[in-house]
């Protein structure tokens, strides 16, 4: 079985739950990640923030309930709302139910989880501690390394 342990991206990148959204976005941009784990003061993992979560918070409720919003294309609603959210704390946007894996899980399980949840990366946890990240490309490249299951 090909395990997660062998493919973790160990450069642990995370943000503190009390950081503001501005910090989160800057960190995500600087490191070119689409999702970032969130930790508390003790360094324990509490959840993840994805670009999708931030977009979800910045699109106003009324726009979500419209069939079609293209008639509002010339109005800066979403960017304006996002701007108003920049000082809010990271924990407010954190998805605590974000899927995670452990080092002993198989890569196939991780692949299935990523596929089903449509996420871009999975935090790898050992107990409450974050020990790394597994991205979609890590999984896609597993097969390139001559790994073929017989």
């Amino acid at each position, binding site marked *: 079985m090909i395990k997660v342990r062998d493919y973790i991206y160990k450069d642990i990148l995370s943000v503190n739950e009390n950081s503001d959204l501005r910090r989160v976005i800057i960190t995500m941009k600087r490191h070119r990640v689409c999702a970032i784990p969130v930790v508390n003061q003790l360094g324990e993992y509490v959840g993840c923030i994805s670009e999708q979560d931030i977009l979800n918070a910045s699109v*106003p*409720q*009324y*726009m979500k*309930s*419209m*069939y*079609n919003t*293209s*008639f*509002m*294309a*010339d*109005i800066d*609603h979403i960017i304006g709302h996002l701007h108003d959210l920049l000082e809010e704390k990271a924990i407010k946007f954190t998805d605590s139910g974000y899927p995670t894996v452990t080092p002993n899980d198989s890569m196939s399980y991780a692949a299935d989880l990523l596929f089903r949840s449509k996420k871009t990366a999975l935090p790898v946890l050992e107990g409450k501690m974050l020990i790394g990240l597994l991205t979609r490309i890590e999984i896609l490249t597993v097969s390139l390394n001559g790994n073929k299951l017989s």
Partner: protein
Amino acid sequence: MTEFLSWHLDTIHIITTLVIFIFTFVFITTEALPNAIAAMIGAFLLVAFHIVNQEEAIDAVDFETIGLLSGMMMTVAVMRKSGLFEYIAIKSIKLTGGSPWRILVVLSIVTAVLSAFLDNVTTVLIVVPLTFAVADTMKINPMPMLISEILFSNIGGAATLIGDPPNIMIGGATNLDFMDFIQNNTPVVLVVSVVTFVLLRLIYHKKLSGMVADKEKIQAFDEKRAIQNKRFFYTTLVIFLIIIALFITHHLHKIDLATLAIGGGFTMMMVTKQDPEEILKEVEWATLFFFIGLFIIIGGLEKTGIISFLADKMVEVTHGETEPAAQLVLWMSALSTTFINSIPYTATMISVIKEMTINANQSIEPIWWALSLGACLGGNGTLIGAAANIIVAGFTQKTPYPIKFKEYFKIGFPLMLVSIVITSLYLYVRYF
């Protein structure tokens, strides 16, 4: 002995039916159970206890109402995709030039007109998010507009046979057709609308004129982009107009409304090449089963003689005179539907009115208009008075401008009373 036994059985049946009816009503009003479940379980129990048999239960269902409702739901499900409703609303908003009061008037008129031809919930689900979009763009508080839209969804719904569930049910149960509703309800709806606007103007004048609005910004809305496929847009519009034209000309072709609505819905799907699976998913099955369950429960009330007992009481109180009966039904309906769901109320009252024996030389028709107007307009009294009110209130809870029960009551209840006074005078002047 057998006589005694049969009397005994009747009493047990009456008590069982009443208990089921009251429990269903309480569950619906308190929302302890979803409407459809409460009504269908009630109906099931009536059949299970042999108060009505299955055949009688099916006979009790008014399929004219169910057919009309489901047909309109299909038609609207296709039409919503065309962007027509958004187009109308945005075009009208832009014509106001951005004055908050004029936006309130225009959005209310759009709500009233759409409500007259679509169901009220669909209408507010289209208009309310747009109102938020406008308010957000102009940086104003949308509350006055939202309250006005609730009021006008119920006022507009009263105007036509297809505008509001009580009217659909009355249309299904009587020989009154689409034009009868227009001729009898629309005039008073217009008067009530004008008076409501005047009163809203007085209530909100200060608040609205004090608003600093970014008027220019609404010109950035592009109504043309709401229509993604012009051909689809025109096709649905033409079919919808044909359906309405056939509704209006019922007296010429005698094709019933349920047939027209269902035929229209499927024609709409055929011509626009829609996937029926997808469109039929949009049909509110829960609402339809809610109606079916209620009809069966009312069937039980009829069979056990409870309805005729109520009808006799009504005749006794009003001496079989249409005039006091119409006024009684109007006020009773308005005040009841302010607090309880208008659908079970109307379903019960339809049976009661049908059983009433009115003095020979008088027409029963004014009582139907009293029931229709009372049940539709009464919905404006509180935030829980009608389905549209509940939907708008629920929608706003997730926004920065949640509508509160008390806040709505202070405006909705007095305005509802005014509308019923106007209707009461209208009934008196027009029919007596």
